[in-house]
């Protein structure tokens, strides 16, 4: 006997992701899911973004890492709540992990949550965490061929940062080539070339994100 099911395999993750998103909406919390390959500069970007955003928003970080708390330790000087998730070798964060991490945060005391996903350009693409914004960070040192090679994750990104642009001449890479390669896969996502170690290079990104957060918070009123 055959019994019809017709359910996407990720339906349970998506349902928990929706619950997370509803919870963020209820508490007017804007949440970003930061995705990149290992070493692209997520944590460095986060360090400098926090310097800007913690001035205006009550901010927390959920840190995904395979085994260590090294990234959390780098962010501790900001004196904000940080929840560490160690996936014990797992290649991505999922909605259930985020739901568990939220139990350790006082949501009524927050405006903004950065989620740093596990460094991986493949697996995180399918897992909705309930975030408001999926941020993809590509380092120029990875090469201009990455958008086409990892089309899944580039297609699903809502904003893309090209990091380490100061190294482009050394890598003999043209930023405009990277941008046009990204636009072939994802013509809609805004793209910000940045150098995460240079605070001033983050101005356009910070301003754009500031507006996105304010638009969201206005919508929740």
């Amino acid at each position: 006997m055959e019994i019809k099911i017709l359910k996407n395999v990720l339906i349970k993750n998506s349902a928990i992701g929706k619950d997370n998103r509803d919870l963020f909406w209820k508490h007017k919390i804007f949440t970003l899911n930061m995705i990149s390959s290992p070493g692209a500069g997520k944590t460095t970007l986060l360090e400098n973004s926090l310097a800007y955003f913690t001035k205006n928003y009550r901010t927390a970080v959920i840190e995904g890492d395979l085994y260590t708390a090294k990234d959390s330790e780098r962010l501790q000087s900001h004196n904000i709540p940080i929840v560490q998730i160690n996936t014990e070798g797992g290649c991505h964060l999922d909605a259930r992990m985020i739901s568990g991490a939220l139990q350790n945060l006082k949501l009524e005391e927050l405006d903004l949550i950065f989620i740093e996903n596990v460094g991986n350009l493949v697996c995180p693409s399918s897992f909705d965490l309930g975030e408001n914004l999926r941020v993809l960070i590509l380092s120029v040192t990875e090469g201009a061929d990455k958008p086409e090679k990892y089309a899944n994750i580039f297609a699903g990104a809502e904003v893309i940062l090209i990091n380490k642009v100061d190294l482009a001449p050394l890598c003999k890479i043209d930023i405009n080539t990277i941008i046009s390669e990204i636009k072939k896969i994802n013509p809609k996502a805004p793209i910000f070339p940045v150098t995460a170690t240079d605070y001033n290079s983050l101005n356009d990104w910070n301003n754009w994100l500031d507006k996105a957060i304010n638009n969201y918070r206005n919508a929740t009123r």
Partner: protein
Amino acid sequence: MHEAALAHQIIELVKETIREDSSLRERAVKVKKINLSLRRPYTVWPESLEFYFTEMVRNTELQETKLVFHEIESKDQNDQNDQNDQINELSSFFASRESGLTITSIEIDDD
């Protein structure tokens, strides 16, 4: 590695289907096959998924259950006129944050 997470989701969905159907639950049915439809972009390697599934169901009520994959035909990837449609389709698919894998049905032993 994310195939392990997908295998776990499949097992949970199948067990939930049986649990929620009183006639199936009471009969302690044996699931022979799990039919899965697979559409491009897969986001999954079927052999890897099968490997994790087999390991996870070892010594459980699903240990003899087989995964059966049915590929859904997609548009001709070489049709240049459809290139923009394909980009839009890819973008909306990944914006939806789903897997290209759907459990279509299970087949149970009638005995």
